[in-house]
């Protein structure tokens, strides 16, 4: 066991957890933020993508201990109060989600992708989403959403 402190959506969270606690379990079980999901056990599906110091990472693939002192943003921390982040708004307007389970990871991946590349092409979006699996949408509307989100984010 050991104490881990990190900033989660702007709030300092300090928890005493087992050394082998995964970051995703720290977020879901110990802090109780359940917007970030677990869809697989091989780091393939991307439902658990969060931002760690501005970089999108799969929270199922690192220990909470490795995130000590870092700043984490999850899907719950993306909107500005009641105002959706432009990427969230774009997913809404373009029907970029159905069951919603992959959505948090999709949106977090998309935000980072577009932040790095404001003039992102459809091909780059499809390649960029390779690590996020969606079973509902066939990706068509997710790609449209990311394009629209990029435009809203100033692309």
């Amino acid at each position, binding site marked *: 066991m050991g104490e881990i402190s990190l900033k989660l959506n702007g709030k300092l969270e300090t928890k005493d957890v087992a050394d082998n606690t995964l970051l995703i379990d720290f977020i879901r079980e110990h802090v109780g933020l359940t*917007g*970030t*999901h677990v869809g697989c056990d*091989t780091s393939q599906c991307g439902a658990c993508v969060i931002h760690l110091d501005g970089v999108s990472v799969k929270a199922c693939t690192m220990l909470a201990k490795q995130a000590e002192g870092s700043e984490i943003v999850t899907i719950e921390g993306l909107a500005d109060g009641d105002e*959706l982040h432009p990427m969230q708004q774009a997913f809404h307007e373009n*029907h970029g989600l*159905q069951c919603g389970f992959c*959505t948090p990871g999709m949106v977090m991946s998309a935000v980072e992708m577009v932040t790095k590349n404001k003039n992102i092409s459809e091909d780059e979006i499809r390649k960029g989403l390779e690590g996020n699996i969606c079973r509902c949408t066939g990706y*068509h509307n997710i790609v449209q959403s990311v394009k629209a989100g990029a435009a809203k984010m100033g692309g």
Partner: protein
Amino acid sequence: MNEVTKIDGIGSSVRRTEDKKFLTGKGRYTDDINKPGQVQAYFLRSDVAHAEIKSIDTKAAQSAPGVVGVFTGSDIAADKIGGPICGWVVPCRDGSSTKEPPHPLLAQGKVRFVGDAVAVVVAETMEQAKSAAELIDVDYNELTPVVDFVNADKGAQIHEEVPNNCYFDWELGDESATNKAIESAAKVVKLSVRNNRLVPNAMEPRSALAEYDSLDESYTLHTTSQNPHLTRLVLAAFMFAIPESKLRVIAPDVGGGFGSKIYVYIEEAVCVWASKKIGRPVKWTADRTQAFLTDCHGRDHVNDVQLALDDNNKIIGLRVDTVCNLGAYLSAFSVVVPTILHGTLLSGQYDIPAIYTNVKGMATNTVNVDAYRGAGRPEATYLLERTMETAAKEVGMDPAEFRRINFIPKDAFPYQTQVALQYDIGDYEPHLDKAMEMIDYSNFEKRRAEAAKRGMYRGIGMSSYIEACGLAPSAVVGALGGRVGQWESASVRVNPTGTISVFTGSHSHGQGHATTFAQIVADKLGIPMENVEVIHGDTDKTPFGMGSYGSRSLASGGSAISKAVDKIINKSKKIAAHLLEASEDDIDFKDGKFVVGGTDKEKAFGEIALAAYVPHNYPLETLEPGLEENAFYDPTNFVFPSGTHIAEVEIDPATGVVEVVDWAACDDFGNLVNPMIVEGQVHGGIAQGIGQALLEDAHYDENGQLLTASYMDYCMPRADDLPSFKVGYTNTPCTHNDLGVKGCGEAGAIASPPALINAVIDALSPLGVTDMSMPATPQKVWKAIQESQSVAAE
């Protein structure tokens, strides 16, 4: 009807009201819910496919840290808890019925697939439960596993009750007329196809959280279900022998289903049982490996097809002999999928005077096989549309023209097929024409030639599908062996301020019912959509309903809502007549207002609602106060969506990679309530069909080990595997429901695999390739290219 009359009425692409919670991380899926005092369940599963259990030693596990209970099949048997049941059976050719072996919650003396649950460990944490499970010692006497379902009749017998490992041997149609047609045919086209085994893979793994309240001796189960009422019925009546009122089942937000969350699984029942045994809430959530091993799989058929043609290339007969794999136990709808939902679809869009089919459902040492998006209809469409394409090429006709001359003509509806169904309405040439236009079919050969210059093989392929959905007329279901009704329910409660709460028996796990159903109510009542709330998924709140599967939610569930709203309008007219001192017959209802015809006297809907709940001026002697109506809608027929999908591919001979370069889908779903949502359903269906055709294959080795049990091994379609899709519609409104709607949820998955494989074969046809099995992986395609080239060189 699809003209947009109001901003949020029927026919408008209203953005979904349910989106915001999912986009902000506030969705509430089963695993997100925790109860005070909750413990975790972990299932020890068989790692061998077929074995007798000589002994199970749980002593060490019992005393491991954090463990609160370890249970095996004998504990379940001692409490006389039943197992999952089969919801639909069919008669066999020899006059016997489907063989229904028991499916114990935890293994009783024998394990029958890798993943079969042998014991459950309940502990304070999942990690403790997993660690303790490793201490359980199971001594197996291994038996020869049966994996090859085609030859399963020759394998070791899996169940005492199932001789030759054959659950059923069923037939439909006129065998003698069909054989005569084949014997007298100018040409018989023969084809054998395999429909590959798939894993549904809803992104949310299955999960259950059960708690027992000892004060009123009742249970509450949160679970990942497409039909919470059916889950409650099966658990209460068939497993636990308790009144339904003692069990509340809540299916909160559910992360996709695609069929795999229809059934009651053993884990849900064990959690319910253990919650009382232990006296604490018990939670179980599958990891993805368990999902692969234990979720019901889909498809897994082989079909031998004979299509008889006359001198004019008109179809005169069709015979299909099918063997399908149903796995280790009979899942709830496993029997109906390859029979009733498959055999009855064999006429497709074609006028076929004689059809016969025989289906053998086999037991194997693999996990159960049941409904997966399309459920039987993709298998029927695949074999038929692959055969149509093959026949067209063999007789030297353009595949579109060959289909066209065999289509059921539009003036032939209602059309009685030779395989039980009567199609109420359809018109097939317009969607064929439109799809061809959308993909620029007439210029395809130019594109093929251009691709050839780049060293690529380009191909085009189509599929004209029909499906029967909107399950279903109960009397027909009963006559065909179904053990459930197939109506749907709705309760529409008008609140005193005129807002509406709609309680539906169907369930949304991605389909957007909160939006679509609200549009129907808003449209019919002429009120803003934001005044309508849709409630589903909780047996304590909603009327008994059959849930969502088989593209039934709108056609059946939406029709029930529409019917309940009609009752509201009728009662409201009576109230309005009283308030306006007019005859009920003189009251017109339009745009949310009750008007005395030919006058300016009117009452708004909100005023009627208020009068119903504050009945100070109200005809109490003839009319009850309040404004709330229930409706149960039992359809008089299936609905029959149809359409044509055309795929265009390019194949790189150096790698064998098939790139889907274009896709045109033109579907007839009848009237559309929310075209945006419909389009999303089409996209998702096509993606799953492309997955089946190019990428996905659940593969067991000869020992019954599932080699594709993770996303590292089972190839899910990713964004860069797929193109954008062109989607269009034609419309022949359904004749037997008020909304004129059909179903759209499964069409994409039904239509797309044959279109894609036909395109792959077309691309390779210059090399002499005439067949390709699913999935057309790069290795398989590359090999086909190499082999054809070596044949050419000889």
